[in-house]
């Protein structure tokens, strides 16, 4: 899984990146929201964005909102958008000066952030959140077994019914689909 760390504080960026590397993940970094957007447009293999809330120019919530407009078409298909995790040092309290930022945290939950982690981050919390994301994405794996069974039944029927012309056309169609699948599989190597 590849994770993009977005934080305008160098120390924080470095710390969280090293943590993620220690957990065994690939990482990318961005210092600002606009830089993160450029990276996300270029690199559609980023699976998770770990972003700070309070950043100059563009905060973490705005980054999420703007990134939803990025076209994620790869070979005619739409790639899965990254999951977003928000980091913040803010904690709910009575300080009215934080109210605007606390409203952003509440909004983050509503608009689709997977999790909110409070700094200083508990490494185990971050690890657990990432495991949850990994598990959730593996659960959406497409059922290929049923598709193969159906294919096999169709071939049996074509042979039993002696439909030679139909079988020839079907072979061409399968070949085209296989070429498309092979091209996709080759990208992951």
């Amino acid at each position, binding site marked *: 899984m590849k994770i993009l760390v977005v934080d305008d504080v160098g120390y924080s960026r470095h710390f969280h990146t090293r943590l993620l590397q*220690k957990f065994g993940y690939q990482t990318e970094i961005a210092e600002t929201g606009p830089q993160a957007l450029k990276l996300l447009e270029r690199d559609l293999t980023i699976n998770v964005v770990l972003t700070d809330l309070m950043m100059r120019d563009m905060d973490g919530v705005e980054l999420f909102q703007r990134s939803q407009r990025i076209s994620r078409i790869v070979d005619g298909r739409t790639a899965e958008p990254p999951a977003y995790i928000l980091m913040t040092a803010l904690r709910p309290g009575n300080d009215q000066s934080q109210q605007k930022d606390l409203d952003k945290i509440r909004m983050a939950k509503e608009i689709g952030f997977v999790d909110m982690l409070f700094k200083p981050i508990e490494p185990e919390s971050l690890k657990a959140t990432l495991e949850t994301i990994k598990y959730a994405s593996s659960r959406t794996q497409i059922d290929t077994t049923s598709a193969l069974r159906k294919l096999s039944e169709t071939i049996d029927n074509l042979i039993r019914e002696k439909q030679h012309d139909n079988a020839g056309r079907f072979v061409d169609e399968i070949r085209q689909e296989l070429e498309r699948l092979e091209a996709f599989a080759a990208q992951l190597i």
Partner: protein
Amino acid sequence: MHSLIATTDPTGATATAGTNDIFDPAEALHRACDDLELLSELAELFVEHRDQLLTELTEAVAQGNAQRIAEAGHALKGSVGTFTTKRPFDLARQLESTGKEADLLSSARLLAELKDSLMVLESEVHQFLAAQN
């Protein structure tokens, strides 16, 4: 860990170690996933970051720039939090608040206390790391 050491930083603050309300080795190691090498790496980075931010804070207080105080206080709080959530962390948090509330008198007072506290923190972190090697 509680030996008395006086240290001086580039911005002119002095500090005396010898208190247990500054550095929390167990917490720091925990945040670095019990990896001493990582903690050592973070300690070096922290010193660089701290010096930069303290300079920025000193300038911001002198200029009366509340927003800059809040931003730099926030950044410093984040890095201090790796090593401790005790006094230096609390001071950085308070400093950030004074910036948000534009309470510049309190900013100046807190900055002086924070400088002292951070010198002790650095000293204790390095002592701890040296003792592990």
